């Protein structure tokens, strides 16, 4: 069990790394693209461009979360 846990931990750190927001952003952007594909929102070119825009937007959101001003609760 200990080895299984260590194995899982290794792959989690390898794939997800120290910032799960990035993985969440990528999965969210692609899930939205799959939804757009399934309802026939755009043609092939439109879908690829939409995918690129969604990924960039999702990445920008993670950066914003990382760098947003934080309230000092100690004051």
């Amino acid at each position, binding site marked *: 069990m200990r080895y299984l846990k260590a194995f899982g931990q290794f792959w989690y750190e390898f794939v997800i790394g120290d910032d799960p927001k990035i993985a969440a952003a*990528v999965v969210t952007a*692609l899930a939205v693209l799959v939804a757009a594909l399934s309802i026939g929102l755009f043609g092939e070119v439109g879908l*690829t*461009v939409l995918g*690129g825009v969604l*990924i960039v937007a999702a990445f920008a959101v993670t950066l914003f979360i*990382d*760098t947003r001003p934080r309230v000092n609760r100690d004051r």
Partner: protein
Amino acid sequence: MTAAVWGVVIAAFVASFVEMVEATTIVMAMGFTRGWRSALLGTLAAVGALAVVTVAAGYAIATWLPESVLQLVVGCLLLIFGLQWLRKAILRASGRKAVHDEDAIYQKEVAAAEAAGKGAGGLDMFGFMVSFKGVFLEGTEVVFIVITFGLNAHNVPAAALGALGAIIIVPAIALAAKRPLSMINENMLKYVVGLLLASFGTYWSVAGVGVFRAGHQVLSWPGHDLAILVLLAVWFALSRVFIAALRDRSPREQEKVTA
């Protein structure tokens, strides 16, 4: 060689170069403090383990995973890796995260090695295990990059060639310099690798979404492979915008991001 093949070779070379610099720093720290026998044996054991992992993973991926699913899955993983590196590069360039310092990492490894006690056996297990772990972890990333770049570009030898170049060149530089490779601008390299992985990852993951439509055919980008160059330019331009925006925003209130 075509531009696409050169792209795969260069991408694999640069990505592997960064991983090799990190592995070499660890092995050198162990070699100089705990002895070269244990450090080199640990490195050899890790290379052997990596060879087994490469053959097993390559066979499993090529045999059991349909090509369209492979494109989506590895595209996603490359994108996650690339954006993680790009995020750190942007935060470092904008002064919001401490710069990666190979000298400091070397000194930290040396201090840990000197603090650890000597074992009774002939082989120094501390030096062996730290070298093994360092080379295996960094090497796994190199193997992953070669497999994903190679399989997606239908040219594993080109990706392997790029990685092999880095595997030979980095230790050679370290051997000639006889010191940690802090003279290499690793932050800049990581920025470049982040841009490359993000561009290839965006291209392949979006194309791979086509597996969800009838016929399971991948989505075709306008301009096909040339779209990767456009994506590279877009990610580069956006990263510069992010860096400039983060530098300008309340510099006195900047907080170092810990992750």
